[in-house]
């Protein structure tokens, strides 16, 4: 019952990275909401309507689960909440990448000469 104040310091020098701990089900919702609050503050995210906000929260929850899975499958890195955590993978690819896909290197481009790599 005691009051909890959450100080959000989203700055770059904040050593606390938003990683995703293991939690039981009901705590997960609370935890996701807390993470989402931190996320919106750190990346100054605002949404035009309540519907959009609720939709983005659901996408955010799905990305929390993805980050947790990525952490298991890529243990030597740290995975968690980034500025893209309210985007579906498709939105992320469409808006923040940009390499034309499915193309190989041009056939007429010069090959770099083989360089010595020992001694």
């Amino acid at each position, binding site marked *: 019952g005691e009051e909890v104040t959450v100080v959000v310091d989203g700055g770059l020098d904040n050593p606390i990275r938003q990683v995703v701990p293991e939690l039981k089900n009901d705590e997960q919702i609370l935890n996701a909401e807390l993470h989402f609050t931190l996320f919106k503050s750190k990346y100054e995210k605002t949404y035009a309507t309540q519907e959009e906000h609720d939709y983005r929260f659901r996408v955010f929850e799905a990305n929390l689960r993805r980050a947790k899975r990525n952490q298991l499958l890529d243990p*030597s890195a740290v*995975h968690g909440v980034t500025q893209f955590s309210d985007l579906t993978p498709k939105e992320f690819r*469409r808006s923040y990448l*940009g*390499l034309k896909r499915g193309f190989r290197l041009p056939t007429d*481009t010069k090959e*770099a000469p*083989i*360089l010595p790599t020992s001694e």
Partner: protein
Amino acid sequence: LPTDFDWREQGAVTPVKNQGMCGSCWSFSATGALEGAHFLATKELVSLSEQQLVDCDHECDPAQANSCDSGCSGGLMNNAFEYALKAGGLMKEEDYPYTGRDHSVCNFDKSKIAASVSNFSVVSADEDQIAANLIKHGPLAIAINAMWMQTYIGGVSCPYVCSKSQDHGVLLVGFGESGYAPIRLKEKPYWIIKNSWGKMWGEHGYYKICRGRHNICGMDTMVSTVAAVQITPQ
């Protein structure tokens, strides 16, 4: 080959930039490589204009239909080098600032060219050759699959499974022998990659991915190096 090398320590890499909500990664990868090449040729580090490529570069690979560079809808670094070769070079960032939007008129001013391409080539998909070309020619434009980068915060990424279908263009600036692995499973040799999503992403804008896993996430098979014109001081 040394065990560690980092062009940032040599002053050949400009600060991390941010492409914003625009599929222009290819232009950041291309300018990053030319910035490094220009530094090697002149010892001068100049931030070059991605917006010039977004607005003015519609170069295609004649052998591949639909491969033309198209601003925020995507492009290819080798097309960008070809464009820069034909146009005479790139302007400074400050003379042609980035807006992150396309369909604007091309405002290229030939009298304000800051760096020019003399030639560019593709590097074989051998990791030692990639390291050797990195050291000899400066930062390299590479393509990679970005699937694991959406949730990446730090450390050395070395996913067990990663698609080799490249969808992102970035800049290879160095490599190291053993990266800090938070769970300390094993120290891993890694590549240092400059991304274009701002300093708040990843390790202050950088991505580390393990070395030695041939073509992990497709990063070995679209590697280009560019050489800048030696601008003789007047």
